[in-house]
């Protein structure tokens, strides 16, 4: 690993942790005390293996492989593991655009419901991205490649606008 790469990884790891800490404090400050946001560590990746046992899961993503591949490529990435008490209920990964003017939410997955009830994760996901985007001074959040029309419409309810040409939704965060 080059020194500049290692330095960027270290600096942005601090920002990620700062964003997730602020998000967790915000959530718990509004009486939701059983939710915690963390970086994607081995414990989260191990827990995501359980999702492969689901019969209702909509994607066949390998978070273990995907995360490790992107972790090295993108030191400025944003990542999030959402825990409800000791249960992993969501994972997400994104990164700033090349010039850093926007923060991309590349993919997100909630734990399949046939493996147990859980709350909706969207409000925690968006909150985490909002905070990290502001910390890195991005002006926009982009949700890339919405998986279908239902999910696209769902994001629109949260104030995101669709750009069909490039297949993403965005929201300005001035």
């Amino acid at each position, binding site marked *: 690993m080059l020194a500049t790469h290692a330095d960027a990884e270290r600096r942005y790891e601090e920002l990620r942790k*700062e964003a997730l800490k*602020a*998000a967790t*404090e*915000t*959530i718990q*400050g*509004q009486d939701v005390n059983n939710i915690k946001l963390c970086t994607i560590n081995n414990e989260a990746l191990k827990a995501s293996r359980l999702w492969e046992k689901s019969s*209702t*899961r*909509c*994607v066949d*993503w390998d978070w273990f492989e*995907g995360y490790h*591949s*992107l972790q090295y*490529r*993108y030191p400025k990435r944003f990542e999030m593991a959402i825990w409800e008490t000791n249960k992993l209920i969501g994972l997400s990964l994104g990164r700033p*655009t*090349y*010039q850093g*003017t*926007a923060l*991309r*939410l*590349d*993919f*997100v*997955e*909630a734990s*399949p*419901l046939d493996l147990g009830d859980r709350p*909706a*994760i*969207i*409000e925690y996901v*968006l*909150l985490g991205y*909002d*905070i990290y985007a*502001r*910390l890195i*001074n991005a002006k926009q959040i982009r*949700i*890339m*490649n*919405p*998986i*279908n029309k*239902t*999910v696209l419409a*769902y*994001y629109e*309810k*949260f104030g995101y606008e669709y750009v069909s040409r*490039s297949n993403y939704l965005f929201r300005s965060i*001035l």
Partner: protein
Amino acid sequence: MMSQNTDDITKAKQAKRQKTGWTMEEIKEQAAKDFKKYKEVSKNNPEPEGFASGDMKKVLEEDEDNDEEC
């Protein structure tokens, strides 16, 4: 008059952020407001079944430099 003043303050804050970015205090203050809104929207709009979004395979294959900036 009051709303005119509020608009001016909001615009001034936005102009400052364009130059210097957000302070942690401002970020936390905004986060609390946003989270409250998100909870409300989420309560009234059930999560799509099997919620997942994005394209992991595409991201694994793509080149970082292909982002459009606007």
